[in-house]
Structure formats: structure tokens, C-alpha cells
């Protein structure tokens, strides 16, 4: 009589399911399909839009040929499930032994890769900075901050008596998605007014308001379609815009204006004799050092328009108090500058057309990524694991074949 099987608890069943090969295979195939569709969609949308829609979402609908809907599971569901499957199936419940050592190491490497990607997604900051070659009287040859590619921020600026300014910054998340009838109130004890923001437009056009009443902004914003992939490829970007209302805390007096990112203008007003400005601009981060561009070199291969070399010769000056020292650096393609957790890459230049003797500027992509080198470590671990696993398999196979041949030869000679 067979022994009665031990009843399996619901939790155990769930863990079994989570750690199964079947689930792993299904998730991998779904991720494959998602990646394929996301790739094809890049013909029509910008890479940023595709990333947001396909890989930074839970579910989505993909339209084949723009017509036939296919529901897909997004990256925010697939990747965590895959991580759980990897954890339970590939690390916790996997049989440990010489035969699975390689696979275990591979899984450790993938966990490291996942962890690195997670840290990058959560904690990294990315943007760009533009620096010009030196010219007397122009300070644009030195920069100590960089701007986000996509995110905006609203800054309330108070000019101080000593010529400096004090800024109160409202991050993108506070006003992103505000509709025509919505308003977000932003306040600070240091401000003599509350700031109300509303009617945020990802892309907008500014024009003069011919019928502006007293106290109203002389400008109006018109909502525009977000720039298309083609426009973005041609160098155009969105110009965000929104409505602003400053309400004095003491008197309740209202100051209205509009903020437009297309030109970087500042809405100015005066409260109790103190001038104030409010502006919308690309989100900005300070660097712990400044970059001074000495010279930019752009060369094409002779007789062609094909780029051969982009190189920036810069001087990196650490902020006061830093233990690092000033140094000259050459930044070029595949040779970034790494300094104090930040990495600066050569990413662009300008002006594209111009007469001989023109003054050039250089554009650097700036990244602060705490897991910068993690993929390299993961690659080493995974490679090592693959070699152990498949190398062992090969050796075992060759040994078995040699044994078979020896046996066949022995049988042949015996007969």
C-alpha cells in the first residue's frame, strides 16, 4: 500500500508555482514578446515614450499595424515576477551540488545585474550640460550644474541685497498632470505668498493676450501636441507651460501670470517692495565641481561628413573643501570623465554649421549612477557560471563518448 502523501499547504503550492521552470519560461517568453513589440513601436514613437509605455508600465495594449489590439503585460509586472522566480527557483529551492554549481553562479550574477538595474532606475540622475569655448566677457565657458532631459521644475526666485539670489524650487511631480481646472498649492513659511500652479501643458505655445484685463497676464498659453519622433530627431523639444497665481498671505492680493519653458522667461512681480520672479526650467542639479572648456575638436574623415573625432579639452575644478585637486582632462567618445560619483560623456557639439574660426560649444551627458560598475561585475560572475556549467557538460560528454568508443573498440578486437 503506498504511503499517504503529505498534504501540501497553499503557501507551499504558491512558492512551488513561483519557483517553477514553467513560470520562468512563460515570463521569459512574455518579456521576449514585450521587447519585440517595444522595438517595433520605436518606428512611430520616441524611445522615451516607448520605454514609459512598454517597460515602465504594468499592462498595455499594443496595436499591430496600428489597428489590431494585443494586450501585453508590461515590464513593471514581468520583471518583479521574474526576480521572485529567480530568487525562489534559482537560489532558494534549487538542488545544490557539483552539477548545479554553474547554474547557481549564473543566477547569482543575474541577481546582481537586476539589483544594479533597480538601483540605477531608482537612484540615478541623468542630464546634460553645455559649455562654450572661452571668449572674454562671456561666462558660458564654465559650468557647475546639469539639466534633466525631460523633467521640468518651477523656481521662485528672490534677488537678495548682496546681488545673489535665493531660490525656492517646486519639483515636476507637484504640477505634472494638472488639468485646466486643477490647481496645486505650494507654500513655504519663508514666502510671503502661496503659489498656485495649474493647467500644466507638456508642450505649449506662448502668444500675446490681446484682451488681457488689469491684473491678468499679458500672455496666454496654447496647448500643443507633444513633439513627434520626427520633430525630436530634428532637434525640437517640448516647451512646457503652466498657469501661476501668487496669493499674498497678508492681503490676499492675487498676481497672475503664465510660465513658459520655451524661452526661459521669468514672470516678475513686486510684493511689498521686494521683487520676485517665478520661472519654469529644466530640472537642474549642481555638480561638486566646475568644468571649464578650453577647446573643442571636431573632425570628419577626409572628403566625407562622417565624424572621426569629437574631443573636449576641459579643466575640472573641485568645489572648495574637496580633497580632489584641479586637473586638465580630455573627454572624447568612449573616454568619459569620472569624478566624485559623476560621469561626463561627450554627447554633442555645436554650432553644426558656421564659418572658419567659429566658436564652438560642447555638450556632455552627465550621469550619477551608484551602480555604475555593477553590470561589469555581474558579467564576470555570469560568464564564470556559464563556463562552469557548460564546460562541465562538455567534459562529461567527451568522457562518455571516449568510453563508448573504447568499449566499441574492445568489442571489435574481442570478436
Amino acid at each position, binding site marked *: 500500500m503506498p504511503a499517504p502523501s503529505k498534504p501540501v499547504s497553499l503557501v507551499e503550492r504558491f512558492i512551488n508555482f513561483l519557483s517553477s521552470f514553467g513560470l520562468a519560461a512563460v515570463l521569459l517568453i512574455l518579456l521576449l514578446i514585450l521587447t519585440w513589440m517595444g*522595438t517595433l513601436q*520605436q518606428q512611430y514613437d520616441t524611445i522615451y515614450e516607448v520605454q514609459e509605455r512598454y517597460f515602465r508600465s504594468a499592462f498595455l495594449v499594443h496595436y499591430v499595424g496600428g489597428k489590431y489590439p494585443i494586450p501585453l503585460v508590461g515590464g513593471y509586472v514581468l520583471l518583479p515576477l521574474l526576480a521572485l522566480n529567480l530568487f525562489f527557483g534559482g537560489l532558494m529551492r534549487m538542488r545544490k551540488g557539483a552539477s548545479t554549481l554553474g547554474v547557481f553562479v549564473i543566477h547569482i550574477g543575474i541577481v546582481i545585474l537586476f539589483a544594479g538595474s533597480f538601483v540605477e532606475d531608482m537612484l540615478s540622475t541623468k542630464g546634460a550640460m553645455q559649455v562654450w569655448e572661452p571668449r572674454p566677457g562671456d561666462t558660458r565657458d564654465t559650468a557647475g550644474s546639469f539639466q534633466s532631459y525631460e523633467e521640468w521644475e518651477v523656481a521662485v526666485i528672490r534677488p537678495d541685497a548682496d546681488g545673489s539670489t535665493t531660490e525656492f524650487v517646486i519639483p515636476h511631480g507637484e504640477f505634472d498632470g494638472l488639468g485646466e481646472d486643477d490647481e496645486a498649492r505650494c507654500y513655504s513659511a519663508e514666502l510671503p505668498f502661496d503659489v498656485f500652479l495649474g493647467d500644466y501643458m507638456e508642450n505649449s505655445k506662448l502668444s500675446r493676450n490681446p484682451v488681457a484685463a488689469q491684473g491678468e497676464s499679458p500672455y496666454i498659453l496654447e496647448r500643443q501636441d507633444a513633439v513627434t519622433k520626427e520633430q525630436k530627431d530634428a532637434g525640437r523639444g517640448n516647451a512646457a507651460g503652466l498657469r501661476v497665481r501668487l496669493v499674498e498671505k497678508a492681503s490676499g492680493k492675487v498676481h497672475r501670470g503664465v510660465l513658459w519653458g520655451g524661452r526661459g522667461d521669468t514672470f516678475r512681480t513686486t510684493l511689498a517692495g521686494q521683487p520676485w520672479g517665478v520661472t519654469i526650467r529644466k530640472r537642474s542639479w549642481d555638480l561638486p565641481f566646475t568644468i571649464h572648456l578650453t577647446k573643442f575638436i571636431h573632425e570628419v574623415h577626409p572628403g566625407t561628413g562622417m565624424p*572621426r573625432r569629437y574631443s573636449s579639452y576641459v579643466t575640472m575644478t573641485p568645489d572648495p573643501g574637496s580633497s580632489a585637486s584641479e586637473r586638465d582632462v580630455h573627454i572624447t567618445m568612449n573616454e568619459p570623465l569620472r569624478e566624485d560619483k559623476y560621469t561626463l560623456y561627450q554627447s554633442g557639439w555645436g554650432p553644426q554649421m558656421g564659418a572658419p574660426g567659429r566658436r564652438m560649444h560642447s555638450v556632455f551627458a552627465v550621469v550619477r549612477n551608484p551602480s555604475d560598475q555593477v553590470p561589469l561585475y555581474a558579467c564576470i560572475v555570469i*560568464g564564470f557560471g556559464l563556463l562552469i556549467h557548460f564546460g562541465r557538460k562538455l567534459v562529461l560528454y567527451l568522457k562518455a563518448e571516449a568510453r563508448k568508443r573504447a568499449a566499441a573498440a574492445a568489442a571489435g578486437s574481442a570478436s
Partner: protein
Amino acid sequence: MKLLSSSSPAHARVARRRLAWALILTFVVGLFVPGLLDGATPAHAADEGTAPPTAASAWPEEVVETWSKTPVQQGGRTMPLYTWANYALLRVNRKKSCKTPAGVKLDPVEWMLDVLFRPDAARTYQCFRIETDEVLTAIGLEFEGRKKADRYSYAELAPARMKLFNLASQYGSKPEKDRSRVEGALVSLAHGIREFEGLTHYLDWAREGVDVSRAKALAERFGGRTQVPASEALVPLAPGLFEATAALMDASRKRNPQNSMSAGPALRKALVPYDGLESMLSDSTLLALMPLTKSQFDALRALHEKRQALSENPEEWLSPSDLLARVVLWPNLEVAPIHLEMLGLLEKMAADAGDPASFTQHSRGFHNRSKELATALGEYTGIESEVTYLRANLLGWAKHFFLLAFVLVALSWMLPNKWLVRAAWAITAACTVLVVVGITWRCILRGRPPVTTLYETVIFITGSMAVAGLVTEMITRQKVALALTPLLGAAGLFLAERYELTKMADTMPQLVAVLDTNFWLATHVTCIAIGYMASLLTGFVAHIYVLGKVFGFKKGDPTFYRNVGRMVYGLLGFALIFATIGTILGGIWANESWGRFWGWDPKENGALMIVLMQLAMVHLRLGGYIKAFGMSMAAILLNIIVGFSWWGVNLLGIGLHSYGFTAGIARTLYMFYGFELLVFLIGAGWWLANRPKAAPAQ
């Protein structure tokens, strides 16, 4: 009645043996007789001793040799004229040889010499390949008795050139991938005609000289002569021309301050009094034949450093047109006597095109000066080696002999014979060596790792597949890999040839700035290419499993299928190692170049898709959801994914890897997808019909 007994095993064996040897003989004869196989056989090799010499087209051997090794600067690099002439002819004729009306076959340099020095004769050569007569209809031409796809001479097409240019201008504004086949052919033909016209007029100034009768001061300088060679006229002309051109350019700038580069029209106007010299102002990008002198190079480099040079690269060589423009526009740059000498030699060659002895002497002189200048700049290295490489045509020979090896293997199935198998082994190994030598030779010529362009991915993948196939055969000894290796070798080299024909451009081009790193090219790109290769090899071995099952091949031999199944799994493991490491290395390179590890760029996604498919296959196998047949079916799908990743994403024309964009390869790719899907569907149909039935309930 006895005749009927021919179906007996002995007679069948004899018949098969006769058929086999007949096939071998036919193939071998076909391989070596020109014309029976395609035109990949080197033209000069095929022609030796066969072409009837004619006074009009037979250039002395030394002339062809010196011009073949004369360096030119094209596409940003220094190459032998032989290379450039190859692609110039390929662009119009779709093959690297052409025939004169007398039926004499010309190699690319002979054709180029005729175009430059005997343009009237060259205009009668039928060297414009038109793939469909719809192109002729579109430009209003009609020819009796010609094939749908045929070759035409410039003289035949010239009457419709204006209509052709108008249509090409209209269709040229469309994105390449949106053009119909005829529209694309019209644009391509117009480019070919323009390039051909540029070349036929390239030396008009040398043939015609300069009439200075309208510039009295100059006529006096030349002792009253009114007709002088351009090489003599150039220097005395320069000061006056510089002032005239500068004045015209000033006037042009005042009219349009944005237009700072209007030297061309101004120069053309300034040249009006010097009848004949304006013909020197051809397309300056056409054929840069004259290397700079070392002192010019240094001077231009210094100007470039100070941002005073017009060009974004100070290393540009000179065509006669450049020389005239630079002499006039940059009077502070010394005119090198050696350049004037070279112009003089071109003039003498243009005049003596019918005198072999004189032409040979001047060709030698021109070549020696060109070589001397290029050597001083360190740019002659590799020129002669490149000519030898191209003439050796290692890949072309390997393609044919791979086919021969495959025929031998196929015959060994009909006619089991160990010598056939050994011969197939030896020929396949020899072909593999040819491909590996070819790849290594290219690496030495370029100073780069083996894979830097899409073309090189094809030959590298073919070569490494041949090596992997032979190693697999050595390990497994099933004759499966031995049958596949020569077939895939031939197919890969055929694809490389087809790709070259589609691109019609140098296969050793310069690299864009982001690719200028031998470390990453040697690690990431090579790894990924091996990953593609191993994945494809897995898929092709899987075809044998699936189709073998479907068609009942070795039906009673389960060991055979067990071994093939193991081979699929083993190759998949090999592929997984390289695809995974290559993909991650790609991310690390992207992190070094662009500041992010993963950007969901199409090429990155393609590589990821391969890895995901391989991982899914491994997990399905380990979980027992699929066995050897299922693995093989999945490996066929893996082939489609590799096709998409390797070529498909380039057809999308998007992403950071769009420098690999390839139009014209779509049809081949879709045929590949179709074939793989067909095999998959056949396999699926067979499985549905033969799957184990569930036992009936008791």
C-alpha cells in the same frame, strides 16, 4: 525482361555511382569554365589568354598594374584605385567586369582607364545594368529585342538623361525604404549616370588645354601662344584669379551674409576669360588622386588647429578641381611643383592614350609620384597588399569549393564511400582556412578586429560557423555537421556577396567616432557575432532533426536522433554563453560611451531577445515541458529571432545603431523568415499527426 532487372541492388549501385561521378564532373567543370558559374571569378584571371586583344581596349599590363596600385582617397580612407574602380563599376554594372562592344571582357581598372582616357569608347560599353524594363519605360526609352533585365550603354541611355534626372530628383526626396523598386532603380541609375559623366569629363581640361586668347596679359606671358596646357597656365593664372574670385565672393556675401561657402560659383565666374579651365572644376569628391605634400599637410593642420581652414579635415587629398580651387582661394599655400608635374603627366596620358609605350611611361611616372607623396604621409602602407587581397578573391573561391564539398557529402549519402567523405572533409577544411585567412588579411589591412561592419559580420559568422561546424563534427562524428558546414559556408559567402552587391560600396570603410575603439570591437562585437553564429548553427542542426523526423530519414535509428538532439542542446549552451556575455558587454560599452547600461535601443533589444529565447528554451527543457523535438522546433524560431536581431532591426532605420542601416536586403530577410516559418509549420503539423495518444480509460 533482363533490362527490368536494373532495379536490382547491384545495378542500382552502379547507376548511382555513374550519376554521382557525372555530377562531380559537371560541377568541377562548371567551377572552372568561365560563364557557367556566376561572375565572382576574378575577371582578370578568367580573361587571361582568352580575350582577343583589340587595339581599342587592350591596355599594356604594366599600365593596368601601376594604375591598380595607385593610391586614391575615397570615403575617408586611402585605397588603391583597383578597389575604387571595382565599386565604381559595381555601382553601374552590378558586377565587377564589363564587356566592350567587341566582346572583350574588361577588369575594373581597364574599364576605368577607358572611361578616363578614352571616354568616347567607354560611352559605347554596355555597362549600365537595368533590372527591369519598367525603368526604361519610365524615362521614355524603348529597345527591341532586349531582355527584361539587361545592360545598356551610356550612348543608348543619354537621350533620356534629363527625364531620368528629373524623376530621380523627385523620387530621391522620398525616404529610401518608401521607394518602389522602379523608383529606387531610377534613383540608382541617375547616380550611376552622373558619376559616369563626371568621370568621362574628369580629364577634359587635359585633353583640351586652356585658351588664353581672351586674357591678353596671360597670352603675352606665354610668348603669344593662345592655347596652353592647364598645368602651365595654372600658376600664372592664380594671382589674377584670386583677386577676381575674392571680389565675387565678397559681392556674394553682401547679398547673402549666411552663405559663407560660395566659392564654387564665384570661381566659375572668375574663370570665364580662361576658356577650357573651367572644365577642371568637376565634382571635387569624385577622384582625389593627388596626395598632399608633407609641408602642405603640416600647413593645413596648423590652419585647422587655428580654425582657419575651410575643411573640417586638413588631410584631404586633391583632385585637379581641388588643386585649381586651392591655388586660387589659398594663394598663401604654396603650389607644390610635384602636383603641377602630376597634372602635366595626366595631360600627356590624355594626349597619348593611343600610344602604349608613351602611356606606359607616363603612367609609371604618375604612379611613382603618387606613391612617393602617399609614403611620406604614411598612407601607402597596405595599398599593394589590398590589391593582392582583392585579386586573390579568397572568399569567392571558398564559396565555390564549399559547394563542391557539399555535393561530395550529398553524394556520399547516395554512394557510401569513405573517400568521398574524406574529400569533403579536406575541401571543407581548406575552404575554412581560406575564409579565416581572408578575415585575418582584412584585419591586418584595416588594423581592426575582425568585425566592424555588417559585411564583416557576415564573413566572420560564416568563418566561425565553419570552424564550429568542423569542431562539432570532430566531437560527434555523425556527418550532420559535416553536411551542414559546407552548405552554410557557401550560403554565408553568397550572402556576403549579395550584400556587397546591394551596398555597392567599399567593404572596408572608415568607422564613425563611437565605433573607434578596438577594445570594444574585439570584445563585445566579436562575442555577439559568435552568439549569432552559434544560435544559427543550433537552428540549422535543428532543421535536420525536424525535417528528418518529418520525412522519415533514419527512421529506425533512434541513436541518430538522440545524438542530433544532444548536438542541438550542446550548441545552444555554446550560443547562450556568447550571446549573454556579448549582450552584457554591449551594455557596459554603452555605459562607457553614452552613460547608460540599457536604453531599449532596437539593436540592444534584438540581442536581449536572443538571450531570452535561449533561456526560455533551457527552462522549458529542464522543466520537462519540451524534449529533443520541442527544442529543435524552438531552435527554428530562434533562427527567426537572430535574423531579426542581426538584419531586421537595421531595416527599421531607427536607434543609435542606425549606422548599420541596410536597404535592399529586406526581400532576402523576408524569404528567410518565410522559410523558417514553413519548416516550423511542417514540423508542427507532423507533431500534431504523430503525437503520442493518451491511453484509453480502463
